């Protein structure tokens, strides 16, 4: 995978994930699509959004001082290691949200609750911290002054 594609992947991933997850937590709290109280939703927001916004800040800071000299070079990172962790971390959140909604049905026997949803978000953030965030630092290095 070329560096250009890897950077585009990470840039778009953090931008869209921050936007959609943030909007979901802010808009749908207290509805059947996100059965959490405002306080619980706020807790979830605090768990995940700062991490995503932090990565976005690094990426956009790098973009503002663009240095595309190596953009066509092949990345030394394996493609699966670039693509899979972000996809899996979002998948965890999507599955947790589906589980949360399904468990709130009167006849459901699922034990998923707000606390489990928070744990899923924490797990997702941990997954990103252990994987993609190292790559962000490598692909979007801070320009030395």
């Amino acid at each position, binding site marked *: 995978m070329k560096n250009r594609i890897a950077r585009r992947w990470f840039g778009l991933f953090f931008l869209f994930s921050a936007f959609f997850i943030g909007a979901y937590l802010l808009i749908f709290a*207290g509805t059947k699509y996100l059965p959490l109280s405002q306080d619980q939703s706020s807790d979830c927001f605090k768990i995940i959004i700062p991490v995503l916004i932090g990565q976005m800040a690094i990426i956009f800071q790098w973009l503002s001082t663009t240095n595309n000299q190596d953009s066509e070079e092949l990345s030394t990172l394996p493609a699966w290691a670039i693509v899979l962790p972000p996809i899996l971390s979002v998948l965890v959140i999507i599955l947790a949200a589906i589980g949360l909604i399904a468990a*709130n049905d009167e006849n459901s026997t699922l034990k998923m*609750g707000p606390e489990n949803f928070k744990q899923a978000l924490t797990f997702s953030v941990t997954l990103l911290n252990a994987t993609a965030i190292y790559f962000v630092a490598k692909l979007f290095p801070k320009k030395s002054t």
Partner: protein
Amino acid sequence: MKKTAFFLLILFCSFTTYAQNNDSLIGLPFNMATPDSVVKEIVTAEITNFRGFDFKIDSFKKKKNHKVLAVNYELMNSALAGGPYYYLNTWGAAWEYSTIEEAKKKAIEEVKKPSTYRPGTILFLMIDDSLNIPDELFDNYKKLEQEIANKDKRKFQFANKTVPLNDAFDLTKFAVDVQNGFSGNRGDSIRLNPYFPVRIGYPDGKQDYADACQDRVFYAMQKTDIADTSFFYNELRHLSRRGLYGTYNRSISTVLNFKSEIKGRLMEKISKFSSHLNVQKDSIQVALPPNLRHALENETISEMWVEGTVRVTDDGIPLEKDTLVKPLAILTNKGLYISIEIRMPNTGVYCALSEDFHNKIIDVTVYKKDEESRSKVYSTLMKNLEIEFAKAPLSAQKISKLYPPGEMWMIRDGLPSLVLGNPYWESSTYTFKVYYGGERGDFENVYNREAFKGVSKKDIYSEHAYIFLQVANVTSTKPHKNDVMYVEVDKDGQSKYFKAINDAIESAVQHTCEELKGNMNVSICNVK
């Protein structure tokens, strides 16, 4: 209470007059009632100056001569009432009889009718047109009040004090505020949520009635040391999240004229809860008892923590909150005040009853003498309440258990809230209480009528008989079935529940009225 006090005072003066002329009564031991058959003829007086004492004496005076007022009283000894006093149970009046003897006979029959009648002494006041009761009565009343306050102060030396009182507010004054039943200015009540106004006083005032022999409990505020303020403040911040605590049992009032005979000693379970009020930030108007207000007059209250009581089921599910709360702590611009509790050993008997009935009433004057028909009204009302509260969106179910007399409980626990809609779940209880306010001659009924809220006083007639209905509701919700705990409903949610409950009550009373072929007049159903 003033009315009761005035009447007791009149009895006291009358009795004193009698006692001065009858040596045989002077040695009567306290708490030893004379046999029921002993009837005492006390004083002959025309009562013309009853300032503020709505005794319907004017209409009584207009009747023919040979008017007789019979009073059933008990001689009691209570430190809190300033020594021996005469406790009024019931009274009855008779007139338009050709002889005094006939009027006496009728009056004594009347006095024995109300359910609050207790075998004891009956005293006659015969009223003709020849004698005035002077203003001295009222001067004496003031003196008596002062004497009681002084005795209370002296009694505090026996109180259990949990902390040194050096820095506390004037404890005795404040305790007297509470003891005298300070109820605050109803217009200045504070609100724990938009639909639950409360007043500063002593929560669970009924405990004093319910267990007449128990110790009295008071509280006062003590300023914390500056070094401890931070510690207390941090503790208080977490207090209102504690849920219910301090559960205890309380006897059920047996003064109410229950329909069926009460067997054994009925108990109900009470729990405590606390709430935090951000007085300054939320611009809350707080009405404090006079002495506490005086002590804090140069300070600005910024935050306040209060403790209230709530009746709970055996399983601990909240049923009905008390409208009085006590301050646990007050944060002002000059410091933090912590409430300290003082337990005073009871040395006598003290009874006080305060029942507020509201929501709806049914005028059953036509059934004043017909207990069977009144019973039909009760059962029709309860049946319709059960039907309406079982309908969506409240969808509550009757709890199958033995209720206290005159009550019914319904519950919707651990089910989706149809009032708030998806995704909310609720734990709601509804407590229905009915109370019969009977004839004019029943003093307790007349008194309780005046505590009735929600209906204009002009619509309540003293000679009418009413069934009062009170519906109490405690609701908590959670946004997810598997959430750990239920929490208070927010402002919008409260508004939705308030409307749903009121609609159900309206509908139930309307149907009851139709079934009984009555006329619905705004909030009163007149049974024809």
